[in-house]
């Protein structure tokens, strides 16, 4: 025993969370930095859209189909709204909705997946087979069908996409949780008399978090693309709300006249998808313990 016990002792933490993050950032590769900066820029656009955008979201500022000019840097759309402003507001809507949808799908899919892994038996079988049935139907077609049934509004869109996406999250979280529930530390917690909440959120979830966070990044991209696709098809985010998918749809015919209008929102979608993937790749690499080249 090295130290004598004094009546009052303060036990200090060794390394703070901030320090850990700083250490990790130091070793981040260029691609990850690129991804993080892009995501940060998008986030700034989304949060401060009203301050950044030169005009209002659905404000008509001039003639339709204008080319780039000092007043409208990226030109105007079919009814004369500023394309740049709509792109900036679009970030807010598209990313915000995709984020809410993904979070919801992880909440549903993740908790059901861990629960199924922990309880096994009939509960697991029941949920798994329902999920299998859902997975048999292509997402886009299923989403179109459901939207036709319940009506196309924002809340319905979010709920339907979240539910459909939750099936995939369920499969992953169940699979990774299965590896964790057989561990002695889970048995040890059960022997201690811990409740379900503690076992799920304190024993299992921290151990399956890395693959889930990675999956979160990827699923976010998919949801984002699905929303864009639905908007393109006219059942997603409804006008006059600015949204990249519908912006592509509205200006798509211009491409045949050699006009770049549909490329701006498309590029915004592509860039964010790539950036998120870069960051996810880095995170996956860090948490999987893979070491390159050695």
């Amino acid at each position: 025993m090295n130290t004598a016990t004094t009546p009052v002792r303060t036990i200090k933490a060794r390394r703070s969370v901030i320090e850990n993050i700083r250490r990790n950032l130091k070793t981040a590769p260029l691609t990850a930095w690129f991804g993080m900066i892009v995501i940060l820029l998008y986030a700034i656009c989304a949060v401060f859209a009203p301050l950044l955008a030169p005009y209002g979201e659905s404000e008509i500022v001039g003639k339709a189909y204008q080319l780039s000019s000092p007043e409208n840097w990226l030109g105007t759309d079919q009814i004369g709204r500023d394309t740049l402003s709509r792109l900036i507001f679009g970030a807010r809507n598209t990313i915000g909705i995709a984020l809410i949808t993904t979070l919801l799908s992880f909440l549903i899919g993740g908790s059901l997946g861990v629960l199924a892994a922990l309880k096994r038996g009939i509960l697991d079988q029941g949920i798994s087979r329902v999920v299998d049935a859902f997975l048999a139907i292509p997402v886009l077609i299923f989403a179109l069908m459901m939207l036709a049934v319940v009506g196309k509004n924002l809340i319905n869109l979010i709920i339907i996409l979240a539910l459909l996406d939750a099936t995939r999250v369920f499969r992953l979280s169940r699979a990774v949780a299965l590896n964790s529930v057989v561990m002695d530390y889970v048995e040890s917690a059960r022997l201690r008399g811990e409740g379900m909440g503690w076992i799920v959120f304190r024993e299992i979830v921290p151990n399956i978090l890395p693959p889930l966070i990675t999956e979160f990044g990827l699923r976010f991209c998919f949801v984002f693309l699905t929303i864009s696709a639905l908007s393109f098809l006219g059942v997603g985010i409804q006008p006059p709300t600015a949204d990249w998918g519908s912006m592509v749809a509205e200006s798509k015919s211009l491409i045949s006249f050699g006009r770049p209008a549909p490329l701006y929102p498309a590029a915004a979608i592509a860039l964010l998808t790539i950036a998120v993937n870069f960051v996810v790749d880095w995170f996956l690499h860090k948490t999987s313990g893979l070491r390159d080249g050695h």
Partner: protein
Amino acid sequence: MVTDKKRVKGETLLDIKGLKIDGYSDDVWNPIIKGIDLTLKRGEVLGLIGESGAGKSTLGLAAMGFARPGCRISGGSIMFDGMDLIAASEEQRRALWGSRIAYVAQSAAASFNPAHHIIDQTVETAVAHNIMTREKAEADARDLYKRLQLPNPNTIGDRFPHQVSGGQLQRAMTAMAMSCRPDLIIFDEPTTALDVTTQVEVLAAMRDIVEQFDTAAIYITHDLAVVAQMAHRIMVLRYGNLVEEATTRAMLKSPTQEYTRSLWAVRKLQKPESISDDIALRIHNVDASYSGAIKVLDNVTVQVPRGRTVAVVGESGSGKSTLARAITGLLPPSRGEIYFNGKPLPRTLAERDKDTLRRIQMIYQSADTALNPRQKVRDIIGRPLEFYLGLKGADRDRRVVELLESIELNESYIDRLPGEMSGGQKQRISIARALAAEPEIIICDEVTSALDQIVQEEILSLLMRLQKKTNVSYLFITHDIATVRAISDEIVVMHQGKVVQQGPKSQVLSPPFPAYTELLLSSVPEMDPDWLTGLLAKRSKKAKVSA
């Protein structure tokens, strides 16, 4: 025989000089092997011994000219039969592997492909290297099976790996390694995963076949008594350095280095037996089964006195871990009763109240899986304090530090994750977690089996000290007789779900023995190079008499 060169016994086969190997971790190269010389003559068996992390496996693999991923050979030379393995191309080395240098790994079950017949895998190397035709190789494999004393040598190869026992599979892997009659064979802890009773057969078979073909061998193990049976010469390694090298007999007789002597000392740990009639836990006529058909526990009666240690011994499948599950309530007994402090214990976990749960704690074999890798020591030890005793915040942390000190660690460990500690330290944390609940009984399930001998001794003496201090009872499940000798007051011998014998240590460990206890006790390797030979002679004599 496949090599054109004639094998001359006594000629130098392997010559390693000044070998240095680095391993990559935390973004830097750290030396694992720090300049080791090793020579091996044809027909000679060299034992490599040391704790985990000593570099013995790395050195063994280097003898094949192979560095594991994440390792690099940074200096020295490896000459195998006149060929420089470091300078050799990947193809040249690959041609040697399997045909002239073979490797037998620790876990046969993990090394065999479960989807193919054993014989197909045994002959694969010989056929792939175009050494023999398939028919010839299969006939040869059957011959090897026979030499390795496998039952039904003509048909056993047609089985799948899961259809034979662990000991048989380990021998089948030796047959695989021998199929090309290699010049050098490397055994990497081949019997570590086996029960003592099976270990004897496997050791005898391996020793025999290596002798028959004059194969040179490197035998890697952490068990001195085992290496004493197998090797002509022993090298003791520590931290990548050579500590001592001598012939087996010379080293056993008079080790020159302090470290080597400390390896010897472990087996001498012994606690005086003390008997008590104050029974804390009584398991009475308990049956238990997993699916209903086969009884894993069959009419088991065991008593655990307060403040004493009861060791439960037996080989794998004897039901000793199931006994722990029955006591903890994870597997409710199908018949019989368990009494705790004279009162019947509720059968299932769900029926037991918090205070009952607190009084019975458990320590697992592998601290790697028993400690949540994402929780810090503060939370691992702190949780039972908070959960059972309602300690919070600074009070809780202070108690955690007290517990850390009682297991001979200190405050600086409080923010560590399990991954940042050594195996022995992790096992100490498991012990502290159990102690935090202030239990009356701790079930220790093979708690030292995964540890090195020196660490084992430290953990065992820590457990003994803690028992003296807190008067806790241990139900100590193990397959290792040396451990049993070291810490038990009473011994329960289990075999196939039944209690074969129960009584005070002195009584169980002295004759007359029931048949199974005798088999178990006689199978424990001793530090005598003639032990295995003597044992085999005794057993075959007995077999003749009874036949």
